């Protein structure tokens, strides 16, 4: 233990500038953070810029500090004095970890506790969550920094290593942009990647501290990075969303019936000078929805388009990520599919046979409660509070460590007491009520510096064609229907689009849908809110009102 403390004290003396800089930045961050809760702006632009980049600067200062702590006893090369002194490698490593704990984790933890206290969130119940956040920091920041520090000997090599890391990350980003979506399925190798990444970091750190085999350590990192990139490139082709979204079964049926609305299509886009962007075009298909079961929510999570082209070839988009929420009252959704511009150019005006496969996560609404929006603030179920900023069409919400969820909120908006300007929707509103859905059921906190989670809740309502939606202000006195959401099952369904012209489903810039709303009749359902929140809501309290939906 004495050797550990001895090396630690030496590091503290040696690295005081780096320590001081990171602590100063942390204090500045902690001081400025409460101002962001109220969205106070500074008069000086450079200060705003500094505040915007402060978290990144702070993280960079920690990376630099940890790397420099390790490089206090450089593990690269064979000329350092300490390698022929009675250093015990595990004590040297322990001394470096002690440095990381004292100069990174401890100040950050104290800052987080202080912010929670200032935001009036309970401290005791947040401790475990904070420890989890710090475990995430170990994984995301400490491990890679220790690894870089252990395979580099100075600032120059560190800079090169960080540049290489950036290049590899850009490589991953490029792959993600050109390959079919790999995050569509639960089968995506994220967990395997995380395990491989963590194991590699730990192995490299141990190899370097114990044996100082830098070449071997660097080769291991290079090999693992190459393997991960190669796997990432192949994975989407090996494991498609087909495995993630099984076909419907009697106990896990499709949440509704889906078919192509053949009356609707885009028109006038040919005249658009900027009809294409980049190398991809995005098509949208009007899919009619009928028979969505009561108390059921569906998230359209993935979509795949298959085309039989006129030249006899088959084209598939592979599974693509979509995040569309389909709640009660919806009659239509517009799944969007990206396709290469070159394909679209060749076959856009030809008749092709098309098939759309949709992957859903099906949820069930739990017990609903009704509450009335207060003038200024409202409690968020699950531990949080929201400020009503009516001028901004959303609720500004705060919670400790993570966003509570999952949750469904619906309201009859706009209404007579809470109207919006006519320009908000020139085409009129869809039948489905305004709603907000948070499906994420992850109970663990997110990796973030501030323990005060800041998020918005906006109730959006679809316009008549249900291809777009708008956020609506929530006036005081508006009744809100709030329900928890329970995940049930994933399922996929196929929609035979028949023979279509792809040109008809390219929205272009003008988004002219034909026929117009008045030519295409929408059959409004009955009171969607009441129907889906039966049996009747809890006995009205003094703050509860009954509303009538006029849809």
């Amino acid at each position, binding site marked *: 233990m004495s050797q550990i403390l001895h090396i630690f004290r030496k590091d503290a003396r040696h690295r005081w500038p780096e320590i001081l800089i990171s602590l100063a930045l942390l204090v500045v961050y902690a001081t400025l953070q409460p101002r962001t809760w109220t969205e106070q702006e500074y008069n000086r632009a450079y200060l705003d810029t500094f505040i915007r980049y402060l978290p990144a600067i702070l993280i960079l200062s920690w990376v630099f500090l940890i790397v420099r702590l390790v490089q206090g006893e450089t593990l690269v*090369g064979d*000329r*350092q*004095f300490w390698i*022929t*002194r*009675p*250093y015990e*490698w595990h004590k040297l490593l322990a001394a470096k970890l002690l440095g990381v704990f004292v100069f990174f984790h401890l100040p950050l933890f104290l800052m987080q506790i202080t912010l929670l206290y200032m935001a009036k969130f309970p401290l005791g119940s947040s401790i475990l969550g904070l420890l989890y956040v710090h475990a995430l920091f170990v994984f995301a920041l400490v491990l890679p920094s220790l690894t870089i520090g252990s395979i580099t000997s100075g600032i120059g090599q560190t800079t090169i290593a960080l540049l290489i890391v950036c290049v590899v990350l850009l490589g991953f980003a490029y792959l993600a942009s050109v390959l079919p979506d790999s995050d569509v399925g639960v089968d995506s190798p994220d967990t395997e990647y995380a395990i491989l990444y963590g194991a590699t970091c730990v192995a490299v750190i141990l190899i370097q501290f114990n044996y100082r085999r830098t070449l071997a350590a660097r080769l291991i990192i290079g090999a693992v990075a190459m393997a991960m990139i190669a796997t990432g490139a192949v994975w989407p082709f090996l494991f498609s969303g087909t495995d993630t979204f099984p076909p419907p079964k009697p106990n896990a049926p499709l949440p509704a019936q889906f078919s192509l609305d053949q009356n609707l299509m885009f028109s006038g886009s040919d005249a658009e000078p900027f009809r294409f962007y980049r190398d991809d075009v995005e098509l949208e298909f009007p899919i009619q929805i009928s028979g969505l079961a009561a108390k059921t929510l569906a998230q359209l999570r993935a979509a795949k388009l298959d085309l039989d082209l006129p030249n006899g070839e088959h084209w598939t988009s592979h599974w693509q990520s979509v995040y569309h929420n389909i709640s009660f009252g919806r009659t239509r959704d517009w799944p969007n599919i990206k396709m290469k511009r070159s394909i679209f150019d060749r076959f856009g005006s030809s008749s092709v046979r098309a098939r759309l496969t949709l992957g859903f996560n099906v949820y069930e609404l739990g017990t609903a409660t009704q509450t009335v929006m207060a003038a200024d603030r409202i409690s968020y179920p699950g531990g949080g509070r929201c400020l009503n900023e009516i001028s901004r069409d959303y609720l500004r919400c705060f919670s400790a460590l993570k966003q509570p969820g999952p949750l469904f909120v619906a309201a009859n908006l706009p209404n007579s007491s809470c109207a919006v300007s006519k320009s908000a929707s020139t085409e009129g509103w869809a039948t489905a009520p305004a709603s907000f859905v948070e499906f994420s059921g992850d109970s663990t906190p997110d990796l973030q510096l501030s323990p005060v989670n800041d998020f918005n809740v906006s109730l959006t309502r679809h316009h008549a064609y249900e291809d777009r939606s708008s956020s609506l202000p929530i006036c005081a006195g508006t009744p809100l229907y709030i329900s928890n959401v329970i995940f049930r099952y994933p399922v996929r369904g196929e929609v035979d689009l028949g023979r279509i012209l792809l040109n008809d489903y390219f929205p272009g810039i003008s988004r002219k849908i034909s026929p117009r709303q008045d030519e295409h009749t929408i059959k409004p359902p009955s009171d969607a809110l009441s129907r889906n929140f039966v049996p009747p809501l809890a006995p009205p309290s003094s703050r509860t009102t009954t509303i009538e939906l006029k849809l």
Partner: protein
Amino acid sequence: MNAIQTEALTKRFGRVNALDGLDFCVPQGAVNALVGPNGAGKTTLIKILMNIFRASSGEASVLGVNSRKVSGKTFASIGYVSENQQLPGWMRVGSFLAYLRPFYPTWDNQLEAQLVQSLDLPLDRKLKQLSRGMRMKAALASALAFRPKLIVLDEPFSGLDPMVRDELSKALLERAADATVFLSSHDLAEMEGFATHVMFMDAGRIQLCEKMSSLTARFREVIVTLAVPAPVPANLPPTWMQVSANDSIVRLVDSAFDAEGTPAEISRRFGPVQNAAFAPMTLRAIFLALGRSGKKPS
């Protein structure tokens, strides 16, 4: 137990054999000078002994510990100084010694003070501000102050001025009484002063390894004046090197000098001898003779 022992020690860098099956031992208490030309493999050998490099094959033990396991606590008994060692330049000399102190249970504060004084070390100067010679002195002080059982020095005098070399030699000699010293150097004259054993390496091989007293006793530079001029005969003894004849003067180096046998052998080979001089040789002269003859002496 020998302080250092190797068995078929080999180190390859790619296709190059830096060390080629070395077998030698350094007895405890010896001051063993490791000499040889540049590229002979001296530094490689020392780095393997200190577990900085790994041997390709063969074994080496240092103070009874396999060289592959020399680390941590083993270094509490080994004082190692190398000419190109990187010291923590940001530390002052005083804080450098103070920092190292707790690592060594046998650290002797009095000896440290004595070394600081005798080597004239400026305790308040940062190591990076010191000259090369002063840094070597600081490194040596830090390697001697804990009374190591084994002192390993890699070219400690290289590029230093005579004053510093003298100070370092003195400090080393004072400590050599109760330690084994293994040092490599180009400076043969310096070695001659205090080495008890000598090892000559060339091209990764040991050409010679023996006690200094025995080496200097068996090497003689011989100048013979013959009564009648004679050519150099064939089939000379293998222990004779650099044999040359000029008229009646014959010169040679005998690597197995025997006060009675050598004169008799000369007479037998060259005929009547008018005069013969047998001059002891310096270490430098011995190794030059060895190097030029390219022979491995018996």
